[in-house]
């Protein structure tokens, strides 16, 4: 039964390998891809269900007992994140079929896609710090290739920076592991939790915690470590930007959430730093969005800004806050990707992502306009959509713990988010019909919107029928905030 945990890793891994060999046969590749993504989704959903009913599930690979071998751990957090990522993968695939040309698909696109998913799912599920590093590398290397393939001029130079910064942070990861191993003599995260608690999180352990905050801060694009993100995400095809925007930084957020609840959970100073960084990240991120007039650029910097909310929630560190972080995380994965898809659909119509070069789209493409509007106000946290519920939970948690200032910052950020999203809506969708090319009026985008609709439904449901999801988040937060659940399931004590 426990083998279920490895399925979301194994499926994309194996199928990715198979897809290398079917590369030249496009229809086969596509079919396999969809089936693989669906299988991933099914296994992850089932895993979540089983974890929900039976509790945390730990799989000791090769039957080497923890903490000696590598364990994969499915708790509510990791399994549900895997499920949502898989959902996103399915959506992205359908969008890819619509927008990619065959050349790109035949450039071993699908294998890389699934290797990326292997890395993402593995990062969520692994219970071993070094193994996390390895999964990170799988994910990053795949992302390096996906972001640079195509080789446009600006794409190459931005990818280069993306690759170098991320490689450096990976090397720092090794340094961090070296420090931590020297002090605790273990790599298993549950065991680390026990060891750090035994040692008392004092002295150099806090410094190591900060080093890890740097490492994961780069992955999750925290201020002032986010520079790799905004420009590089504009370059690749939007489907890829959507996938990256939805997933990659969230893996970073997940690791921060995991590390600072499970392992380094004793220092109030570090939580305070998280709050400060969260506040700075959300505000500075949104300023980037306010100043831009490029559809994709605005969305990219919003990724940064939204990560700030989650980090703030982790810093607040209460059950409700963690529930809020999770809610926000799920919401953000869904909505951010949906928005990128809209950017893609809009670009398909107009051939540009520069806002000032188009207007009146609402008149020519009302469905595109209104579906975008829903996603946009959801991102801005307008009720009753998912963004509102996520933000609201965080506000309640923040006020309860007395973090008034950062909540004020988050509300101001919300307003600026609305401002920048409405800027897109009012500049490009409102106004006189003025499109860069005359035939743009007749470009049909129905088939592009179709894969986004499930995501939109999800954001509406997460908002309107929030109670069951919030209950789930609370239960999840309960599991996270009390690390002994995790530790006991892994170490079988």
């Amino acid at each position, binding site marked *: 039964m426990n083998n279920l945990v490895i399925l979301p890793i194994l499926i994309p891994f194996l199928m990715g390998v198979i897809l290398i060999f079917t590369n030249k046969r496009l229809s086969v590749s596509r079919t396999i891809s969809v089936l693989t993504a669906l299988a991933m989704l099914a296994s992850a959903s089932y895993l979540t269900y089983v974890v929900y009913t039976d509790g945390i599930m730990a799989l000791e690979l090769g039957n080497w007992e923890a903490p000696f071998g590598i364990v994969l751990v499915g708790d509510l957090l990791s399994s549900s994140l895997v499920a949502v990522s898989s959902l996103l993968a399915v959506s992205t695939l359908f969008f890819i079929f619509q927008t990619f040309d065959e050349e790109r698909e035949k450039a071993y696109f699908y294998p890389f896609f699934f290797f990326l998913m292997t890395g993402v799912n593995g990062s969520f599920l692994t219970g071993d710090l070094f193994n996390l590093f390895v999964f990170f590398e799988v994910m990053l290397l*795949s992302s390096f290739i996906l972001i640079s393939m195509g080789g446009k001029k600006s794409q190459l130079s931005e990818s280069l920076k993306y690759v170098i910064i991320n490689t450096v942070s990976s090397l720092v990861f090794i340094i961090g592991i070296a420090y931590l191993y020297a002090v605790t003599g273990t790599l298993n995260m549950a065991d680390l939790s026990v060891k750090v608690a035994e040692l008392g999180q004092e002295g150099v352990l806090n410094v190591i915690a900060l080093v890890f905050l740097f490492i994961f801060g780069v992955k999750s694009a925290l201020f002032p470590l986010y520079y790799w993100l905004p420009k590089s995400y504009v370059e690749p095809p939007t489907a890829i930007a959507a996938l990256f925007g939805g997933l990659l930084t969230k893996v970073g957020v997940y690791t921060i959430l995991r590390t600072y609840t499970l392992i380094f959970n004793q220092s109030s100073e570090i939580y305070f730093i998280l709050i400060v960084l969260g506040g700075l990240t959300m505000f500075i991120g949104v300023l980037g969005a306010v100043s831009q007039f490029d559809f994709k650029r605005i969305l990219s910097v919003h990724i940064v800004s939204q990560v700030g909310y989650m980090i703030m929630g982790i810093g607040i560190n209460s059950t409700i806050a963690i529930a809020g972080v999770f809610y926000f995380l799920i919401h953000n994965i869904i909505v951010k990707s949906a928005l990128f898809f809209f950017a893609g659909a809009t670009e398909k119509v107009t051939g540009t992502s520069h806002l000032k070069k188009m207007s009146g789209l609402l008149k020519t493409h009302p469905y595109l306009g209104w579906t975008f509007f829903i996603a946009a106000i959801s991102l801005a946290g307008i009720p009753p959509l998912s963004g509102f519920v996520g933000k609201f939970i965080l*506000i309640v948690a923040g006020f309860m713990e007395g973090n008034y200032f950062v909540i004020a910052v988050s509300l101001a950020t919300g*307003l600026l988010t609305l401002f920048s999203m409405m800027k897109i809506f009012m500049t490009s969708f409102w*106004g006189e019909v003025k499109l860069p090319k005359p035939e743009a009026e007749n470009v049909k985008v129905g088939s592009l919107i179709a894969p986004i609709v499930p995501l939109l439904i999800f954001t509406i449901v997460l908002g309107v029928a929030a109670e069951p999801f919030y209950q789930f988040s609370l239960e999840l937060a309960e599991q996270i905030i009390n690390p002994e659940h995790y530790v006991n399931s892994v170490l079988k004590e």
Partner: protein
Amino acid sequence: MSLLHLVVLAPFLLAILIPFLYKKFRHIHTGWFVLGLPLVLFIYFLTFLPEISGGGAVQETVPWIPSLGIDFTVFVDGLGLLFALLITGIGTLVVLYSIYYIANKKDEPLNNFYVYLLMFMGAMLGVVLSDNLMVVYVFWETTSLASMLLIGYWFHKERSRYGAQKSMLITVFGGFSMLAGFTLLYVMTETFSIREIIAQTDVIASHELFLPAMLLILLGAFTKSAQFPFHIWLPDAMEAPTPVSAYLHSATMVKAGIYLVARMTPVFGGEPQWFWLLSGFGIFTLLWGSVSAVRQKDLKAILAFSTISQLGMIMTLLGLGSAAVHFDLANGETLYTTAILAAVFHLINHATFKGSLFMVVGIVDHETGTRDIRNLGGLMTLMPITATAALIGTFSMAGLPPFNGFLSKEMFFTGVLNATTLDLFNMQTWGLIFPVIAWIASIFTFAYCMIMFFKTFTGKHQPEKLKKQAHEAPMGMLIGPVILASLVVVFGLFPNVLSYSIIEPVMRSILPSLVSDGGEFYVNIYHWHGPNTELMMTIGVVIFGSLVYLNLKRWQEAAFFLKERDPLNWLYDNSLVWLIDGATWVNDLQLTGRLRDYMAYMFVFFAGFMAWGLFYFDAIAIDLENTAPISTYIFVLVAVLILATISIPFINHRITAIIVVGVIGFLLALLFVVFRAPDLALTQLLVETVMVVMFLLVFYHLPELKKESFKPTMKISNLAISIAVGVFASLTALSAHAFSYENPVDAISNYFIENAYTLAGGNNMVNVILVDFRGLDTLLEVLVLAIAALGIVVLVKYTAKGRENL
């Protein structure tokens, strides 16, 4: 889910159907499908009157997010019912009016219009009928959204977009602060239910969050109800079609703030801050609005500023009246409740006369093609019915008998005069300001009312300045203003029709202590109070107001009259510019596109983080004892390593640089040998060799290394950053090393040493770990290599053609 819930949600449900109805029955004006709903709802709400007048209240609850204290509780009491009646009643008239106002042209997006309108109607009903603050908030933001969409209904117009953005930014700003305020209340009371919060008022009044919560909620109310200085969105909201202005921006939505203040009076009413903020901002808004209205040339702009001013007046009254909460009403101190009474009564009156006036202006605009008073005049004979409605409306607004405006204006004067006698909240010193400002503002109010009526309907008709041949509007358009105008007269003549049925229950909602104290309370509105101060004030208003109006010609050239736009707009417009400029500046400072800058920021942060941690947590420790002995040859090895490393930045020859880095790799391999890691050494040797070869192959084609041409300051900062990174990374390492000897733990590695052979059957422990204990790592490591290889192939072979980039 009760019928009441359905009633609140009904507009939303109908809104979903509208696009289909629009598509299917294109030749029928979509408005006809909508018209029935508000009418039915209005009649439905009327059936509540007997029970509510009798002092009852109706409540139905459906849980929504109970774990967050959010239940969808529909609660109908006097206050809620009054607003519900206004929303549905005026809603019916507005929908009817709109059917004639917006013609069913070929590409007129009527579906959008009615979807927004219904969305607004449902949201507004939700605001006034919900007991749960969060539900109120959800609907509140929905009204902001609907209002924004309606203002931008003709979105091809630049002004519409500007107005829409402005109203959205300001009202959502207020909404967000209100959300914070509500949440603070929740943190204090652990409930979002208004009635439960009221019940806990005594407990929370001394809480440190009480005042912030009040201020934040007031921000919400002030922005929505267009109080100074947030009123600037309302004049620009006039870009919306006139039915919308009549409905949202005079009769209902802008009164949501009033509603909220009235609703929260039992909670905050006893506080001096509440009293001062409401009455202070209110009276100033009253003055500002009325003075600004006089100088407008656009009829709708006059109405907009007039609305602002009247809202200020109601706000003032609610503020002054909140003193009633402070007193023990059972002792017969009903004097101060006059203010609240006036507020409620004027709220109704304002809805009637302002609603009708907006519709009148819409008719004038529709039939003549302009709203500019400089082009209008002499329409009385051409549009007699419209003119009559306008006369009733403007005279009522000016406060002339026998219309309802006269009554409430008199009560307003009574209220402000009473305020001077209050002996609390320092009123002794400041009290006189209120009647004086109120009186001055009323003079201006009188003046703009006269301007509106006489400039439009009397004087010389100037057909050459009109875009259309002016004539009376169609019947359907007249129904709305005529009904409202007749109500103005009816309420003026028989105010007590309202007193017992609705005003009294409303008073009970705002001042619940009226009943709980068992004190007798009934409302009676009189026309004639004898020749008291109020009457003198009114007479003064008429005299001076006429003077202002009559001397208008002389003043029109004054700079004050030439500037129509509110000076505060300057602040708003520039704030947006500053915001964008500031944001661009912050952004450009960071995202320079230079890898060097990115790296520098990151490393500064990295080193700073470690430095701060090391000092703050007092973590620095160096353990000189528990170290392995140093042998000379290792010493030499390390010395060479360090020297080679330091030399690298100075090498300006690419092949040499590559080879020196390679040498460092080989030295590393040697060290691995020395430190008993043969497998590592082998791997390192292999990898390093391949790497150097690759480097040489790739970089053979690259240009020769140039000397770095950094500015000296840059060079020094680079150097400082590098040294800091090295020093603090080493310090952390040293401290970790010392820490590990001070606090020894059982490392898991012993397990591998003990069990490598017995359990895994291998002698080379490293290999056993790689292939067995941590097989997954190795598998993935192979995957990484494979991905890299495949990636290199793709990178070299594949170039995207054309622009399929989506």
